[in-house]
């Protein structure tokens, strides 16, 4: 069951519009490099600048990657799709129209599932391919805020970057679910390598359509559009704030107005944005410079067959293997950690123990060191050797921690080497333990008396003493049973 937002008899109705920049080499409709962070207006051509006579030629790889994403999100890929012109005047749009898709998108309706104990399904309306807009640097203005700016400078490097716009139905019922959906969707797109989905660089952008309605109502309330929530946290907070704002309005007997809002993470407030085309009349019509895009069934089948394991599938595999829901979810959205886990598991050929170490000692080390799983010196092979020693009873947990720390400090060291040098192997041999026990019993006659007199708990004290004598290397279980045997005799 999903986590529903419900207050004062109202429920949240949320849909997302997600823009993903595809990581192709070249732009969507021209051969300019598709690259982030270069000097302004250095990755542009006649097409980028919409010079008279410039013509768009669509990027085959962008079409291919879009189809892969569509397949990964459970969308239908129609036999042909069409590019259309979406018209609006704005300095970030050199042609004053964006080449997008209208009634024949590349990816048609789909169903995307967020798995887990409180998982849920969201219908996808479509995913269509389009071109990104230019960047405007607002002299005097701040972070994309436009009003009161003393003019702007346009940088056309970003214009024409391939964008896949993924639109969901308003099936999301809480800000948290919106965040969880976006998280899993991001993980899915990253898993197939279509985009790095870096919200800070803007290669993943999410807008939310938000409305509230009486619980159980079937028709939708007036929705507002939230823009610029450039982190998962901001998305959740922005929607939360907007739901509260709308609830305030209806509580006061007012009516929510349809508008576009801009979330300001600093103040947590929402400001109304001027819309690009006042009349919102985009005058869509088919792009005559591009013919229909036909999809070959054979090619699509091949694309479907060659998709990597997707987060949802991974989640199911891990749960089936007996991992707890939370662990499986965490690994589902973290491909790199999941890959580490799978590698470690093959060394140990025990997924559960591998998961304990991956999520425990290893994750803790990643957090403290700030390293990524792939970058950590503790490779699956090295950790595998360590865990093997524990599983064999050669060392105990206390020693294992010490060995792990040594593996982090010295990338050249091996688990066996460290255990040898520091003499960390457990003391398991009966005679050696026997000697320790004899010494301890001799040193504590009163406690021995007390135990034999029925004070069971004294055994703890005696075990402690023996462990101390062994320098912490004694195998606790063996020690217990041996000690009991001695006391019984």
């Amino acid at each position, binding site marked *: 069951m999903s986590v529903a937002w419900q207050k004062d008899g109202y429920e949240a109705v949320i849909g997302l519009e997600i823009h993903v920049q595809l990581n192709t080499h070249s732009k969507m409709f021209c051969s300019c490099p598709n690259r982030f962070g270069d000097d302004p207006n250095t990755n542009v051509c*006649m097409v980028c*600048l*919409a*010079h*008279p*006579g*410039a*013509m*768009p*030629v*669509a990027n085959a790889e962008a079409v291919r990657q879009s189809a892969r994403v569509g397949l990964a999100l459970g969308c239908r890929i129609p036999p042909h799709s069409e590019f259309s*012109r979406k*018209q609006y*005047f*704005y*300095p970030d749009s*050199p*042609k*004053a*129209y964006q080449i997008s898709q209208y009634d024949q998108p590349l990816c048609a309706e789909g169903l995307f599932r967020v798995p887990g104990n409180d998982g849920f399904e969201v219908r996808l309306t479509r995913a269509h391919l389009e071109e990104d807009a230019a960047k405007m640097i607002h002299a005097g203005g701040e972070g994309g805020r436009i009003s009161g700016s003393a003019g702007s400078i*346009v940088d056309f490097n970003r214009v024409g970057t391939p964008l896949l716009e993924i639109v969901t139905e308003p099936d999301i019922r809480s800000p948290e679910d919106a965040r969880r959906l976006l998280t899993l969707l991001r993980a899915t797109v990253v898993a197939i390598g279509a985009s790095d989905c870096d919200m800070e660089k803007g290669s993943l952008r999410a807008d939310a359509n938000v409305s509230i309605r009486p619980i159980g109502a079937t028709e939708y309330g007036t929705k507002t559009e939230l823009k610029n929530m450039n982190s998962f946290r901001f998305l959740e907070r922005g929607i939360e704030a907007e739901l509260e704002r709308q609830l305030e309005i209806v509580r006061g007997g007012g009516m929510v107005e349809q508008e576009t809002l801009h979330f300001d993470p600093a103040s947590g407030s929402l400001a109304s944005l001027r819309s690009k085309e006042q*009349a919102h*009349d985009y*005058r*869509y*019509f088919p792009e*005559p*410079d*591009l*013919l229909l895009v036909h999809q070959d069934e054979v090619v699509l089948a091949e694309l479907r067959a060659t998709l990597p394991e997707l987060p949802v599938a991974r989640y199911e595999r891990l749960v089936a293997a007996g991992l707890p829901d939370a662990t499986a979810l965490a690994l589902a959205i973290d491909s790199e950690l999941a890959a580490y886990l799978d590698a470690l598991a093959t060394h140990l050929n025990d997924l559960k123990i591998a998961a304990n170490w991956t999520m425990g000692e290893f994750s803790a080390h990643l957090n403290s060191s700030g390293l990524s799983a792939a970058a950590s010196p503790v490779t699956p092979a090295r950790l595998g050797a360590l865990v093997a020693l524990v599983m064999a009873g050669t060392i105990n947990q206390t020693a294992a921690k010490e060995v792990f720390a040594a593996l982090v400090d010295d990338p050249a060291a091996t688990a066996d080497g460290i255990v040898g040098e520091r003499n960390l192997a457990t003391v398991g041999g009966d005679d050696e333990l026997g000697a320790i026990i004899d010494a301890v019993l001799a040193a504590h006659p009163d406690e021995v008396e007390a135990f034999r007199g029925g004070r069971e708990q004294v055994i703890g004290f005696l075990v402690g003493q023996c462990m101390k004598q062994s320098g912490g290397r004694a195998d606790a279980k063996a020690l217990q049973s041996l000690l009991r045997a001695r006391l019984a005799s």
Partner: protein
Amino acid sequence: MTGLDVIGLTAERASSMLQARDCTAVELASAYLERIELYDGDVHGYLHVDAERTLVDAAAQDAAGTTGLAGVPIAYKDLLSTKGVPTTAGSKILEGFMPLEDADVVARGKAAGLVSLGKTNLDEFAMGSSTEHSAYGPTRNPWDLTRVPGGSSGGSAAVVAAGLAPWSLGTDTGGSIRQPAAFCGLVGLMPTYGTVPRFGVVAFACSLEQVGPITLTVRDAALLQQIIAGASERDATCTGPREPIVVPTAGRLDGITFGVPWAELEEGVEPGIRARFDRSLQIARDLGAEIVDVELPYARHGLAAYYVIAPAEASANLSRFDGVRYGLRVDAPDVRSMYEATRDAGFGPEVKRRIMIGTYVLSAGYHDAYYLQAQRVRTLIRRDFDAAFASVDAILSPTAPTTAFEFGARLDDPLAMYANDIFTLPVNLAGVPALSLPNGLVEGLPSSLQIIGPSHSENLLFRLGAAFEEAHGFDPVPPLLRGGSS
């Protein structure tokens, strides 16, 4: 004076003179430049001429040793981008604009060694049928300087008719090559859609237009088509011709069946034009062809469909002229008023008219009734032609219902102006090729025959055209020039 008489000189003849070393490319170019100097003041066919640059290019061709058509001069409609040479599209909004690249067709002309004489006048953004809508003043018809040369490629036609260029390139969106060719007694080809690249052609209506030749002879048209036709990686709609273009030789028409859409010829065709047309049918029969009636029931809706679809595409194509990246900018306190002031000052009345129509027919509430409906009519017109070509080899009609009209005659009546393209528009809507060629004079003015063929039938059209051409024995040189020359 070079003493070289280029009046009526075909490109084909010019190339053989060059190869025979009867003249050099520089002498040839100089001869045209001198005539331009002398007569273009009257004709105003050129918007831009750079004699020095032309002579340098010509000298380079001489140095390289002229083969094929290398060294032959040409004029380009000023809708075609020319790298480092001003390209205005006949509009104030592009005054001083310097393209960064050549249009594909211009690049192909250069590759073939053609020497550019300059950029020719046109109706602003190719929107018009008289060249009166140029922001830089009208072009005059060499057959009668009180009359229009047709349009929108009026400059490209006039300079060839006036002996100010051996041949030229125009563009045809609704008749803009064929109608001026008709008014100026020349040959003009609207190629099959998707055979000539549009990259670098300032866009008017992308789904309708192609670049094509305006020439003195059918053979020249084929020669120029050989140069410009072919797929381009810069135009996703251009896959090139299905078969190589063949330069035709005149012959008989035995076994050819022509269709004539009699029903469409009932309205508005001047008697003189009609008489010339009937005579050309007789010529066809004499050459062994059969003439049958064909129905194009939806062709009569072509004008209406065209004046929805073309303005709709144009309204979007012209939105890029916003004063931000190039061209005219009229300063204003905020972006929106800068857009509005710039576009108000930069566009002429006909362009504004079409932007308004196009914006209206695409706007919310009207899109389906106008734009979608026009696209359905377009489907039916294509079906009409498909059905016709199932039973005939080609369709004959006059190119235009009138001869060249006088300046101002239709300027205040847009519909009357549009109606002059009644026979040419359906061809663009269907995307099929059509050849226009001289069909004798009516009261001293050229009339014209249009031969429409199925997609990729250029070679057939050239062959048929050559046959008519020879039978007509038409002299493409206006009497005025005979008087004006030497």
